[in-house]
């Protein structure tokens, strides 16, 4: 899902960076000092979760779980996932530096969106109902991410359109897996620690 340096046109890079700065500012505003340890530890757990490879047929995919991050962290998912992307670029060489803004928008943007749309629904009703909404939220976020990646490639040049289409088709199984996993994770968390969720009482919007 990471776009590298050199592929995108300058207006797309600048637009992405400007939007990302806004997203980070908004996320930090919604993150009181008291919540920083929780957000930091969750950010680290999403970083670790993205190293998990899940088998699919003869191959395997690695998880992104940005939808789950949005459901748990709400707006704070933006800076949290941005930090993950920054660390991946600097220490693993995944992604790039000038594309950091675009990558943050593509991955953290849908996470926040999923949190805003599904966050309250996940915390409500029985754990099973929460899990179903969680699964929908998880699948939704990754689908939007894929579309956003395809869109940022297509904005930069027509020659990328076939690649962008391919990216989307290739990610349909990933969308399904992320939805199933997010649902199951929410089901477990709802039963074990219901206060985890953004929409829950005493939670953080």
């Amino acid at each position, binding site marked *: 899902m990471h776009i590298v340096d050199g592929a995108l046109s300058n207006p797309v890079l600048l637009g992405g960076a400007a939007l990302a700065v806004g997203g980070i500012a908004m996320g930090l505003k919604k993150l009181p000092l008291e919540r*920083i340890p929780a957000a930091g530890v969750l950010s680290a757990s999403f970083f670790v979760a993205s190293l998990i490879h899940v088998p699919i047929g003869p191959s395997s995919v690695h998880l992104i779980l940005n939808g789950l991050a949005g459901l748990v962290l709400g707006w704070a998912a933006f800076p949290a996932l941005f930090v993950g992307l920054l660390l991946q670029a600097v220490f693993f060489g995944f992604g790039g530096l000038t594309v950091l803004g675009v990558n943050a928008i593509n991955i953290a943007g849908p996470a926040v969106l999923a949190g805003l749309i599904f966050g309250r629904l996940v915390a409500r009703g029985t754990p099973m109902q929460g899990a179903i909404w969680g699964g929908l939220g998880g699948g939704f976020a990754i689908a939007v991410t894929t579309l956003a990646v395809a869109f940022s490639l297509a904005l930069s040049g027509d020659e990328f359109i076939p690649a962008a289409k391919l990216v989307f088709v290739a990610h349909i199984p990933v969308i399904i897996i992320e939805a199933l996993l997010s649902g199951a994770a929410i089901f477990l968390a709802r039963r074990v620690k219901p206060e985890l969720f953004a929409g829950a009482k005493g939670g953080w919007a």
Partner: protein
Amino acid sequence: MTYVLTGEDKPLTGFGALRAAVSSLDPRMRIVMTVIYAVTVVTLDDLRVLSGALILSMWLLAISGLPFQKTLKRMAMMDGFIIFTLILLPFTMPGTPMFSVFGFDATWEGLWRATEIALTANAVILAVMTLVGSMEPVTMGHALFALKTPERLVHLMMFTIRYIDVLREEYLRLRTSMKLRGFRPGTNWHTYRSYGYLVGMMLVRAIERSERILAAMKCRGFCGRIVLLEEFRLTRTDVMFAGAMVLALAALIWAEVAYAAA
């Protein structure tokens, strides 16, 4: 520290890095120069100039004291991710045909574009890994704070850096206990549900851990201020290094303009 971030077996920073030229430079200057370098290289188009930029990045790697092979292997891993997009480009870009596969024409223009992207991506990521990635993660946090990054974002980053290792160990413990109970991953509902529970359990444990951390921090009177343990100072070597980088970048820009005019 932060074993996951800095290497599979040993932190990259451990390899005689103390004697290397880059690690003695001011971290703030390294971050600023990396950003300037990345922005400049991204605006370059000429393949000859971009090759020059890649050579410059290689030189940075050579003086950084990072293990050569390991760093290049990481760079190659990134190439593995983008290779499909790059292979598609010659077939999707209009232009002079080069050859055709199953009736699809590959064009020279597409090939040049793909090469351009590959060169830019590699030159930038190599510079990022050598100039910034060779720092201790905590030093990077402090340097970013010294460069006026919002305090909360730096806090968030430092927490993430600190706990990636801890949570990875937790993840491995959970995986071991799954294995002991006979779990074998496959393409089935049971696998996906189990992985989902695994992630859910990690989140639950993470939140509980963060509650203990917050309590411990409050107990020690944490008030949200970052205490800088080291003071960064710009030395003459730093200024010389930055000057050399700026000169090299100016040369690249000059070459780009000269080739474009020719």
